[in-house]
């Protein structure tokens, strides 16, 4: 049961949600989309093992097989057909203790595995001269519970890793917790003594004020945005697994919301697993004649074909809503979009200000249903 409190137009509604949990750790196959310029390390007919490197993007982000099986390389995508064995490539770098690992090794481990946060390599994040590390243990987008579960499931590992980062990089480390999340707060209270370097900050989870940009502006006024290394619990967990086992993480959480939170499900699924299949076969929701919104319904980004979606770090929530015609009419210049904007820019401008965080609130409050934040920045 999770208590939810949200911003503005939700009327600060409190609602108790029963969250169902599902798993999709043995999918029939996984898909990895490829782009021009990617280096592909496999060919059709190859057999790959879990954790085997499949491709590397131009920016150095690496993608690994999350199941073992036969490879099929097609135009724009690579498929691995699961042979349902659990054969996995084991790294030689597994460590018993991660406490005395050196700073450069931390960077190296992340670099080797090409792990990323917000489409940027964590290694290059770590190399920058950060003055602060802030880990957001909350889910930023409304109705999303991935980080929440990630934290619950791996609390010791995550706190140990954060303590380590704080020590080795010699910076203050903050962990942001949701005021309304009693489970996690209680869990933290029990172990708080063991992590003297971590500052636990309990803040109100009001969208979109928990986005990194807003958190920086509100709580860390003395630092510029670039001084702070922001991570979420999932990125921290990736660092932990990289250090401890020398391996990439092969599964992540996805939240699925039906209509007005009639059903809320959190699925732990392998990267590359097909989201359409998960929703139809595992959660058992019929998506026929429904509108699918990705990550945040306020942004009004609709997905035309759910079967083309796979589990990646960029897809965190799926909203399945009754179909609704959303026609926009002429702007009535009511000014609500300007009023609500958390970064105080004018969403009506021809070109969006670069500081726009794409929170979608302007879209959400617009009485004329105008999609304001799909403009060029």
């Amino acid at each position, binding site marked *: 049961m999770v208590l939810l409190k949200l911003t503005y137009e939700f*009327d600060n509604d409190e609602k108790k949600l029963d969250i169902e949990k599902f798993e999709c750790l043995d999918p029939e196959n996984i898909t990895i989309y490829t782009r021009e310029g990617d280096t592909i390390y496999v060919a059709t007919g190859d057999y790959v093992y879990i954790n085997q490197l499949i491709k590397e993007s131009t920016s150095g982000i690496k993608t690994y097989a999350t199941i073992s099986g036969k490879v099929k390389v097609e135009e724009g995508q690579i498929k691995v057909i699961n042979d349902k064995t659990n054969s996995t490539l084991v790294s030689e770098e597994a460590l018993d203790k991660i406490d005395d690992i050196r700073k450069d090794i931390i960077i190296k481990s992340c670099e080797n595995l090409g792990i990323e946060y917000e489409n940027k390599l964590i290694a290059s994040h770590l190399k920058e001269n950060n003055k602060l590390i802030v880990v957001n243990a909350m889910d930023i987008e409304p109705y999303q519970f991935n980080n929440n579960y990630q934290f619950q499931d791996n609390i010791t590992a995550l706190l140990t890793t954060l303590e380590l980062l704080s020590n080795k990089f010699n910076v203050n480390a903050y962990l942001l917790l949701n005021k309304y999340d009693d489970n996690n707060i209680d869990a933290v209270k029990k172990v708080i003594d063991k992590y003297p370097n971590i500052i636990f900050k309990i803040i109100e989870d009001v969208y979109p004020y928990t986005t990194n940009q807003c958190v920086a502006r509100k709580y860390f006024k003395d630092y510029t945005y670039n001084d702070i290394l922001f991570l979420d619990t999932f990125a921290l967990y990736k660092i932990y697994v990289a250090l401890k086992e020398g391996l990439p993480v092969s599964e992540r959480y996805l939240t699925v919301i039906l209509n007005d939170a009639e059903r809320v499900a959190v699925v732990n699924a392998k990267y590359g697993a097909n989201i359409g299949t998960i929703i139809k076969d595992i959660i058992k929701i019929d998506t026929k004649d429904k509108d699918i919104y990705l990550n945040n319904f306020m942004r009004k980004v609709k997905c035309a074909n759910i079967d083309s979606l796979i589990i990646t770090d960029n897809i965190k929530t799926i909203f399945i809503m009754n179909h609704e015609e959303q026609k926009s009419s002429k702007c009535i210049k009511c000014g609500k979009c*300007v009023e609500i904007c958390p970064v105080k*820019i004018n969403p*009506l401008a021809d070109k969006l200000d670069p500081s726009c965080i794409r929170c979608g609130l302007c879209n959400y409050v617009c009485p004329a249903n105008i999609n304001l934040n799909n403009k060029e920045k």
Partner: protein
Amino acid sequence: MKKGLLKENKVLKINLLYILSILPLIIYSYYKNGFLAFHNGFMSFFPSLQYLIIPIIIIALSYVFETYYYLVIKKDEDMHNVINSVVPYTNALCYLVCGPLDRLYITIPLIIILDIIIKFIDTKFSINQIALFKCLLFVLLNLLGMYNNSNMYELNVTVNSNLTSYFIGNVVGEIGTTSILFSLIGLAILLFNKYYKKEIPIVTILSYAIVCVIIYFFTDLNFKQILINTMASGFVFATIFVAPLSVATPVVKTGTIIYSLLFGILSAIIVNATNFYLGIYILILILSLLTPLFNKFKLAIA
């Protein structure tokens, strides 16, 4: 959860509230210009009803014209732009600012023709339609020499203008702008509309009042005269209905406040220093044209 995650289209609701807010004024305008004229024997019954029928025709015709504009000219697939149009409301407001003419029906083609002209100007600039209407209308009516032959009621039953009749609106003036009481009732209805920019009437009235106090101390106008000027000029109507018309006001809070301040201060001067009440509308028109400028204010302050 009280609301769905996705919200319904609100513009229709907003527009209906707008129209509802001027219904008391329309009904009162019938009472004043039609019913009283009939009652006092200046008009027979059926002609007196025109003050009820013509505004309804204007609202209905506006919807017809909007339908034609969007469906035939713009080739829209469905009616949503028509339903969401604010034009029927602004046209009804235009009717209320007309003089009570002998040949009242002339307002119908006049308003519709002006509406067409404005549709084409409006795509380029954000302007306050009613302010523009009022100016154009005034010029046209003067050209046609009609405003001078205002109806018999206006000419014959000029009431003894005490403060109460000014407040209720039973005085010489445009069809529907004279009543302070019914304008305030309209304001009460508008306050139910979350999208009504209430800061505009509030700031305007405050700044207007301050300037009036200054005028009181530094000129030989007395309190009663200032009050009568204010009520007779249609300032209250303009402040509640015309100035906050959201399609032509700044979207940025700071800009909106400056817009209202300027409107309040300058209209206090216009109303009390000149008898040129049309100046209020010209002022709104100019301020509306400056809207893009006001929208820049916030960035400077933030």
